[in-house]
């Protein structure tokens, strides 16, 4: 499967009067795994929505293999570009097999019958996500991790060269987060699928993505390899958080350690000198 390239040119987008994204120029390299990171409300999800044409930009364009995605016929675009929104809702009573089979929608005409190619794609998607044995279960009965694998299976059955995911690991335990990200990495390495995902967790983004896109206030702050992008300065300027970035002893990727106000054994130079106030813990975490 050839992986088309995705190019964003001079993009401005928003909701009604409110401009969320401005002056975005971006090349998503084909066949790589790109993660978009940034603070809440910085426009990450809006960028992903614009890339997947759920949102029509006010200015600029998004080009898929040189063609504007907002001009392509819906079905043809859906054959090349898959999308998994944040916490999607499964229809009441739908089984795993039915849900995953929906991924074949863009490849089925009005009167087309279910073909062996469709069946093979669904089988492959189920196998790849280890959900074959769940095929007859109702999606609503599954655990959060299983459910997310099923949604990814649906996107896989769509067999697109590009897959966009909005926070695919939200609400998952750490083991399920790793499972989902491993699965996406497999997909990227074995099929060459271009992956673009919005991620909250900086360290996981740095570990799994080939390219990090850091966004702040609706603009792109930095783009490049995780080693280049994930720096103490970036964390400070994008998230407003003092941190230390060290090398992950396991992967050699950069790893960010946040400095809160209550650090137990901090070397003296960065010690945040502030008396402990009677603040609710939630505020400290924020």
């Amino acid at each position: 499967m050839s992986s088309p390239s995705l190019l964003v040119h001079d993009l401005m987008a928003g909701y009604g009067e409110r401009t969320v994204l401005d002056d975005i120029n971006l090349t998503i390299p084909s066949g790589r795994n790109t993660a978009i990171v940034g603070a809440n409300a910085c426009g990450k999800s809006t960028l992903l929505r614009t890339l997947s044409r759920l949102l029509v930009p006010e200015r600029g364009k998004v080009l898929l293999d040189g063609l504007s995605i907002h001009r392509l016929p819906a079905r043809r675009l859906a054959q090349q570009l898959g999308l998994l929104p944040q916490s999607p809702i499964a229809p009441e009573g739908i089984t795993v097999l039915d849900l995953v089979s929906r991924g074949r929608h863009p490849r089925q005409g009005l009167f087309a019958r279910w073909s062996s190619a469709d069946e093979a794609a669904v089988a492959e998607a189920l196998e790849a996500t280890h959900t074959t044995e769940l095929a007859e279960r109702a999606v609503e009965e599954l655990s959060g991790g299983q459910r997310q694998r099923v949604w990814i299976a649906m996107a896989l059955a769509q067999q697109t060269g590009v897959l966009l995911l909005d926070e695919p690991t939200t609400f998952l335990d750490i083991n399920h987060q790793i499972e989902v990200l491993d699965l996406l990495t497999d997909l990227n390495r074995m099929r060459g699928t271009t992956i673009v995902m919005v991620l909250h967790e900086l360290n996981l983004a740095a570990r799994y993505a080939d390219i990090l896109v850091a966004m702040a206030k609706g603009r792109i702050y930095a783009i490049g390899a995780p080693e280049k992008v994930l720096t103490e300065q970036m964390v400070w300027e994008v998230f407003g958080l003092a941190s230390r970035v060290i090398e992950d002893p396991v992967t050699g990727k950069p790893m960010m350690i946040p400095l809160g106000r209550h650090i137990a054994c901090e070397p003296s130079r960065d010690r945040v000198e502030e008396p402990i106030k009677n603040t609710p813990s939630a505020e400290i975490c924020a």
Partner: protein
Amino acid sequence: MSEPLRSDQLCLAAAGIARIRRKRARRRWYVWAVLLACLLAGVALTLMRGQSFTPSMTLLRALGGADVPGVGFTVRELRLPRAVVSILAGICFGLGGVAFQTMLRNPLASPDIIGISTGASAAAVFAIVVLSMSGPAVSIVAVVAGLGVALLIYALSWRRGVTGARLILVGIGLAAMLQSFTAYLLMRAPSWSLQESLRWMAGSVNGVQLNQALPLFIALLFFGGLILSCSRDLEALRMGDDIAEGLGVRLTATRVSVIVAAVGLVAFATAVSGPVAFVAFLSGPIAARLTSRNGSLLIPSALVGALLVLLGDYVGQFLLPARYPVGIVTGVLGAPYLVYLIIRDNKSGGAL
């Protein structure tokens, strides 16, 4: 998935899911067949049993056009038109209702709850009483009014997008207004019988004629075909707008086709039988339970709708102490379900 998937393993998986698919398809056909058999049995029952019993051989001869004394008129002029119109109207209500419920992802969003059939009914009464119209012209007025009401609901509930809950509340309000308008019009037509008035308030197939079935049948072919052609897109819409669009569904085009087709079906049926209470509202949920959500609900809902009207009419005519129009019977069936839905949504934090 650390190593590439082996092809024999894939073949095995594919064969496995193909088997599941065949099993589910068999079960689906089975439910359809049972519903169809019930419908045929219902038709036989309503044709044979009325004030008098008609044995099956006599019935067939009478249907074939033979002049059986005392039976020919009853069967051909009274029972047959009633059965045919009941089935056609029931299919129209069932399809239109489930299309709306699926598209708006809410069982309360059916055309008879949100005022579309009430609007069509009010327009039909207006056309007959005030404009002295009759025949297909009434249907056209009803369809236009139904579409107008749909548009009005949409416009009134628009505030930076339309949410299901607001649309339903606006629709319920409009339905109440339109119903009082119908009642007002009926008061000004004193020559009408109670039965005739009840047709336009609750729905009835009293005194229908076979020539009213033809426009209904044509409408069903046209609008029903349009809805069936959107079947897959409708199923995709159940997963939310974002997923549907990601799967290549053209949201606006699908919505417009479904609304026009569903309103057309409901309005054409209403112009003949009046707004038969709750048939559109009940058919989809009953079909969903009968099929355990196996496949598209369109066809099973259509069959359930036909059964509801046909049997509701029979019950109203012969099994109750007085003669009631079908709408009263289906209304009694539907009201508890409506209460149940509202309680359930209230408990689950209003998953409207």
